[in-house]
């Protein structure tokens, strides 16, 4: 695989950073919402929010990078429907990278708990305290996360299918180390 067939080091780093953050924030969100009020819960909720804000910031960086750098082209042998599906899925993932932290932030404000990034930087409350709205936003946050779970399963499934069944470079070009090219 030639260097130009791979994503840039920056794009690869940002991709895996966001993946790592989501793999931490998602289960943390599930665990903390099942807990009764306790010091541990307050801590976990804060960590979850800090992770969410970080996901948002990294998503902004990714979008900026993506807008200024053309990703490597898809293999010519790839059928049109697969291209369309891949583009659609990637777009939706980007939308959720922004929408999920945003819904969490708004939900926090509506529930009367400001988000203070790392316990240091207070984020403004875009909306005031409103219990009914807070409950709606909680549901929105949950549904968006269900959507994210589905999309991530499809994303990972597709990457593995390309790697192990199609045996193309789709996964390798996003891996930190180009494993398949070393075999070629």
């Amino acid at each position, binding site marked *: 695989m030639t260097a130009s067939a791979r994503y840039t080091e920056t794009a690869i780093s940002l991709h895996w950073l966001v993946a790592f953050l989501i793999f931490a924030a998602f289960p943390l969100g599930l665990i903390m919402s099942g807990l009764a009020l306790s010091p*541990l819960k307050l801590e976990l909720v804060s960590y979850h929010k800090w992770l969410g804000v970080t996901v948002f910031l990294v998503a902004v960086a990714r979008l900026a990078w993506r807008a200024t750098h053309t990703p490597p082209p898809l293999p010519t042998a790839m059928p049109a429907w697969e291209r369309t599906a891949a583009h659609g899925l990637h777009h939706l993932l980007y939308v959720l990278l922004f929408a999920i932290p945003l819904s969490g932030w708004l939900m926090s404000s509506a529930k009367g708990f400001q988000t203070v990034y790392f316990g240091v930087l207070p984020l403004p409350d875009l909306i005031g305290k409103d219990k009914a709205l807070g409950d709606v936003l909680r549901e929105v946050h949950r549904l968006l996360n269900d959507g994210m779970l589905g999309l991530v399963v499809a994303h990972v499934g597709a990457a593995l299918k390309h790697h192990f069944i199609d045996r193309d470079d789709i996964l390798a070009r996003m891996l930190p180390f180009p494993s398949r090219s070393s075999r070629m």
Partner: protein
Amino acid sequence: MTRLFAALALLVAVSPHAAELSAVQLDKSSIAFVSRQMNVPVEGVFKKFSAQISIDPAKPEAGRARIEIDLNNIDAGSTEANDELKSKNWFNTREFPRASFVSSAVKALGGGRFEAFGKTTLKGKTLESRAPFTLKQEKGVLILDGTFPLKRLAYGIGSGAWSDTSVVADEVLVKFHFVLK
């Protein structure tokens, strides 16, 4: 002459202090608090309280106050938190349903600022406390506004696992606003 003085003294003693205000407008008054949870300021409200305050704006030093708070009526931001606050670790409202602040000494700090000295009783424990406040007269009412820090752990508020001040800070800001007529 002595009789005149005696009569004057009697007059002074029995005449009501015309300038002293003591009718607290409860619907316009409030007592709120701000705790810090993971460094996030969270506002709460004491929804039910009684307040007997007598203060003469011309002579605030003679002011007196007795505030009683019903600890079973707190809005701490969520139903979960409201229930938690009633538990033994927090206010233990079954045994100690009320908190009180009693003051009979006010010191002028200058610049329209004063400080009420008194005793705060919480969870069966009484400690000396000071509440700085300002006085403002407008449209026939007198407004007392003040904020003071209360160290929750000194009263055993938030014990057990909750005594970890890195999660819930020791200092809770109490904010009061009283309107008197």
